[in-house]
């Protein structure tokens, strides 16, 4: 997402990372009990994954995160007036870039005085799934994070297995 953020900054798209609770707490990165815990975890993310976007923290009770649906790694695209234009269950750079470029075009078309009316679209997007890479990331958080994730993955309780592909 860092590359997308850099690419989209010039035409006027801001990008932020909003730090939530730990989705899969582990021994090294446990659940937060205080804002200091959350600050430490956010700094770790920043250095470990070289996040170059501004990182903002939600409060310790997750008020914002819960109000937006509470998914672990969702992405929203929101305009200056505070209207949600795009909302995805998971984060995928190609998906959000595609949406951002489309909405930049809409802004340009409005400036060109085209008459436009909004309508609702639903569609399925695709993201890369790399189980090994995911487990590597969780291993840095601790074995408990790995075990909890694997346990639900094997029970087919996670929502992003390639087997759920409706076929495109």
């Amino acid at each position, binding site marked *: 997402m860092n590359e997308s*953020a850099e690419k989209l900054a010039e035409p*006027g*798209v*801001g*990008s*932020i990372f*909003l*730090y*939530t*609770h*730990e*989705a*899969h*707490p582990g021994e090294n*990165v446990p*659940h937060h*009990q205080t804002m200091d815990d959350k*600050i430490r*975890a956010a*700094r770790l*993310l920043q250095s470990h994954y070289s996040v170059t976007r*501004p990182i*903002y*923290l*939600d409060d310790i*009770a*997750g008020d*914002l*995160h*819960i*109000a937006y*649906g*509470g*998914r*672990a*790694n*969702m*992405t*929203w*695209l*929101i305009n*200056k007036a*505070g209207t*949600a*234009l*795009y*909302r995805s269950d998971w*984060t995928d750079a190609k998906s*959000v870039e595609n949406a951002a470029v489309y909405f*930049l075009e809409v*802004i340009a078309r409005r400036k060109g005085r085209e008459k436009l009316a*909004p309508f*609702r679209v639903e569609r399925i997007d695709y993201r890369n799934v790399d189980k090994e890479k995911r487990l590597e*990331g969780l291993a840095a*958080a601790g074995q408990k*994070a790995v075990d*909890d*994730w694997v346990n*639900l993955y094997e029970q087919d*309780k996670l929502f992003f297995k390639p087997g759920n592909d409706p076929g495109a």
Partner: protein
Amino acid sequence: MNREEQIIDYNYADFDMNALAHVMKWVKHQPSVGEKVPDFPIWLLTEDEANPLEETTLTAVLKQNPLTIVEFGSFT
């Protein structure tokens, strides 16, 4: 649920079926596209170890650009 219970509930210690149930409950109430999103205070993580957080609001951040991508996530 009082504030203290919400903090414990939200910051679950184990990712298990109970944690998943929370997420499924929250998802049902998320705003739709086309709607104005709710505003909340958020805190910018600064480089300053003595003052690591700078308070603002999501609305204030959104006003800085015609469009803003907001990725939610954590280390884990």
